[in-house]
C-alpha cells in the first residue's frame, strides 16, 4: 500500500515539476519578447532625440510612456513614434503623472508673460472675456463671421486661389438671408482683427441666437496633436523638422498626414479653442463651414484617439463631438488627411469640366492624364480657360478662382432650399470628382507626388442639429 502511495506521490511531483518547467519556459520566452519590444521602443525614442523618455509595460499589457518630457507636445510626439512602430493597440495614450513628467505646460510657460502684460509666445491666441450680465432679448438673431485669406503677410506661405472670393460669395449669400455678417478677407484677416471680431460677437450673441462661422484659407496643424487650424493673414508657418523626418518612415503609409504635420501654424484660428470654447457659455446654435486642407481635423481633439495621423470617420466624430458645447453642425471641405482643391470654378469652366466627365467610364476618367488624352477637345477647352483665368488673376492681382467645396456647396444650397445637409448630399460627389481631377492634373504637372483615390472627401457632422436651413 505504502509503495503505491509513494509512486502516486512521486508521479504527481514529477508532473508538477514538468509543468512548472514548461510554464517557466513559456513565461521566460514571453518576458524575453516583452524585453525586446521595450528595448526597441526605448532605442526608437533615443533615435528621435527623446533622451529622457522611456516605456514600460502596463498591467493590461500595453506600453506606457514614462520618464521626462519637456512639453506635452513632446509627449504626443513620442506617442506618435510608438504608434508608428508598434501599432495603436500596443500603446496606452494617456499621460500618467505617476510615471511621467511634463516639465513645462503652456500654462506654466505663459504665466510670467501674461502677468507682465505681454503676449505669450508659447500659447495660441485666445479671446479675452469680460464677465457680466448680458442685455436680454426675446427674439433670436443670426450672426456670421466670414474669413477668407488668399495671400499672406509671410510671402513664403503659398497663396490660396479663391479663398477671398469664396468668403465674399458666402458673405453675400448670408447677407441675403438676413445675417449680420462680419467679413474679413486677406489683409483684414489678421490675428488681432479676428480676435476683435470674435470678442464683439461674444458680447452681442445671446441664448437662442445662431452663429455661422465660415473660413477659407490654408489648413495646418495648430499643435502636434494634428488638430487643424485656419491660417490667418499674419499667421506664421513653422516647419516641423522632426515630423518631416518621421515622414521618411511613414511616407508609404501615411503620406498625406505626414506632409500635413511637416508644417505647423503659429497663431492660427483654432475652431475648437477660439470658436467652440469661446461661445461655450452661450446657448447659441453654432454652424461651422470650413474650406481648407485637412479641415476634417479641425475638431479632432474631441475624438478620444486623436493622434497626428489618425482620421476618424463621420460617425466617430459625431459620437465624440457630443462633448462639444453648443456645436450644431459642421461641414468641412476635406477629411483630416486630404488636401482641399480649388481652381477657376466659375461659369463655363465648371460646365465643361462636368460635361467632360460625362459618358466616360469612371475608372479611366479618374486617371487624370489618360482622361486628358482620351478627350483632347474637352481637355484643350479646360486648358485654354485655365490660362485665361490665370492671366486675369495676374492682371488684377486678385484671386479669381474658387474652392471646389464652396463653389459646389453654394450652388447646391440654391437648389436645396438653403438646407445645409441636403446641399452637402447634393454636392459631395461633384466635389470629390472635380477635386480628384484637379489633383491628377497637378500630379501630371509634377506638382504633387500622389493623389489619394476618391477626391478630397468633404465631411458633415450633425452634432446637435439634423440639418440647418440658412433661409429660415
Amino acid at each position, binding site marked *: 500500500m505504502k509503495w503505491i502511495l509513494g509512486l502516486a506521490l512521486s508521479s504527481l511531483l514529477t508532473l508538477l515539476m514538468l509543468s512548472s518547467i514548461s510554464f517557466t519556459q513559456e513565461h521566460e520566452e514571453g518576458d524575453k519578447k516583452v524585453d525586446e519590444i521595450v528595448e526597441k521602443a526605448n532605442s526608437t525614442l533615443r533615435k528621435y532625440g527623446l533622451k529622457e523618455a522611456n516605456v514600460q509595460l502596463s498591467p493590461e499589457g500595453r506600453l506606457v510612456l*514614462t520618464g521626462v518630457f519637456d512639453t*506635452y507636445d513632446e509627449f504626443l510626439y513620442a506617442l506618435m513614434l510608438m504608434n508608428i512602430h508598434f501599432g495603436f493597440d500596443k500603446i496606452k495614450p494617456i499621460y500618467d503623472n505617476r510615471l511621467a513628467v511634463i516639465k513645462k505646460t503652456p500654462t*506654466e510657460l505663459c504665466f510670467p508673460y501674461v502677468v507682465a502684460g505681454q503676449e505669450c509666445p508659447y500659447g*495660441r491666441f485666445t479671446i479675452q472675456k469680460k464677465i457680466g450680465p448680458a442685455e436680454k432679448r426675446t427674439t433670436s438673431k443670426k450672426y456670421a463671421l466670414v474669413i477668407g485669406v488668399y495671400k499672406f503677410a509671410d510671402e513664403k506661405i503659398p497663396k490660396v486661389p479663391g479663398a477671398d472670393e469664396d468668403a465674399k460669395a458666402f458673405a453675400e449669400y448670408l447677407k441675403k438671408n438676413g445675417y449680420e455678417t462680419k467679413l474679413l478677407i486677406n489683409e483684414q484677416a489678421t490675428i488681432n482683427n479676428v480676435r476683435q471680431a470674435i470678442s464683439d460677437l461674444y458680447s452681442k450673441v445671446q441664448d437662442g441666437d445662431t452663429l455661422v462661422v465660415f473660413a477659407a484659407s490654408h489648413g495646418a496643424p495648430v499643435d502636434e*496633436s494634428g488638430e487643424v487650424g485656419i491660417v490667418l493673414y499674419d499667421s506664421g508657418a513653422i516647419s516641423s523638422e522632426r515630423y518631416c523626418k518621421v515622414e521618411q518612415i511613414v511616407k508609404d503609409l501615411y503620406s498625406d498626414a505626414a506632409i500635413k504635420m511637416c508644417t505647423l501654424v503659429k497663431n492660427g484660428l*483654432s475652431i475648437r479653442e477660439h470658436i467652440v*470654447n469661446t461661445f*461655450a457659455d452661450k446657448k447659441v446654435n453654432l454652424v461651422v463651414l470650413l474650406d481648407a486642407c485637412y479641415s476634417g481635423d479641425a475638431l479632432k481633439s474631441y475624438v478620444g484617439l486623436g493622434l497626428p495621423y489618425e482620421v476618424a470617420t463621420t460617425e466617430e466624430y459625431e459620437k465624440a463631438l457630443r*462633448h462639444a458645447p453648443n456645436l450644431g453642425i459642421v461641414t468641412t471641405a476635406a477629411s483630416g488627411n486630404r488636401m482641399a482643391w480649388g481652381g477657376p470654378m466659375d461659369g463655363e469652366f465648371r460646365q465643361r469640366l462636368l460635361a467632360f466627365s460625362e459618358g466616360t467610364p469612371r475608372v479611366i476618367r479618374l486617371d487624370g492624364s489618360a482622361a486628358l488624352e482620351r478627350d483632347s477637345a474637352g481637355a484643350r477647352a479646360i486648358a485654354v480657360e485655365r490660362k485665361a483665368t490665370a492671366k486675369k488673376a495676374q492682371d488684377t492681382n486678385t484671386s479669381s478662382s474658387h474652392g471646389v467645396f464652396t463653389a459646389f456647396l453654394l450652388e447646391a444650397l440654391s437648389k436645396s432650399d438653403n438646407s445645409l445637409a441636403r446641399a452637402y448630399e447634393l454636392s459631395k460627389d461633384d466635389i470629390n470628382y472635380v477635386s480628384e481631377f484637379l489633383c491628377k492634373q497637378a500630379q501630371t504637372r509634377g506638382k504633387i507626388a500622389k493623389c489619394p483615390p476618391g477626391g478630397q472627401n468633404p465631411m458633415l457632422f450633425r452634432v446637435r442639429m439634423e440639418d440647418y436651413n440658412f433661409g429660415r
Partner: protein
Amino acid sequence: MRKYGLTLLILSSLFSFSHGFDALKMMQKALEREKQNKDGTQSPLPFNPLKQGNNEQTPIDTSCKVMLDNTPKNSLANETAKNVLKGAATGAIIGGLLSRDRGKGAIIGAITGAGVAVAYSALKTKHLQPESPKDTAKRLGYDPSMGELLNFELLPSEVKSYKRGEYADIVLRISLLTPEALQKKDNQKDELIPIWVNSYLVKDGGILYPLSSESYYLIPGTSALPYYLPICDEIKPGNYKLRFQITGLGREVSREVDFRVSSK
C-alpha cells in the same frame, strides 16, 4: 556586520551632503548661462537673466527662463524613490550614531528610515495619486443613473503665500465617471476621455486674460494634473487669481484659486 554598517553610514552621509550642493550647482549653472549670453553664444533670455542692482548680483537666478528650466517637478515613482533613499540614509546615520553596535544600528535605522519615507511619501503625495472609478464614485456619491460626470478640485484650497524664487504649486484633481467605467472588467481596456483645460489670469473688473489651453486624454476615475508656476522676476508682489475651466464629457466646470506673492 559592523564593517558593512560603517560603510553604509559613510555612503549615506555622502549622499546627504551631495544634496546640499544642489542649490550651489543651480547657481553655478545660471551664472554659466549668463556668461554664455554675454559672449553672444546663446540667444537672449526672454526675461532678465540676473537681477543686478548697485553692481550686485542676487545669489540665485530667479529669471523666469531659469526657473522654468529647473522646475522641481518629478514623477511620483521618482519622488518616492528619492524619499526612500533620503529616509534610508538619514535612518542609517541616526541608527548608527545611537546604537552601541553601529553597524547593526545603521542597518536597522536604514530599514526603519526607508519605511517611514514610504509612508511619508504616500501621505505627502496623496493629492497627486490617481483614484479608481469605484473609489471616486464612492467619494462623490455617484450613481450610474446620473450619466456622465466631470468635476475637479483645485488645490490648495486656502490662499497661500509665495516668495520670489519659489514655485506656486497648484494641483487639478480631475474626476471623470461614466456608467461604463464602473462596469469595466480588469482585462478590458480603459476608456480614454479627452478633456481641455483652459487657464486664465483674472484681473480687476473680472477680465479674464487667457494663459493657455491644453488638452489631455485621461482615464475614468480621478487623475491629478500638477502645475508649478514660477514666482520669478517678472511676478510683482501682490494678490493673484487664476481661473481653470475644464471641458469634457459635454460638461464644463470652472474653479478659481487665489495666491499671494510677498515682497520678501
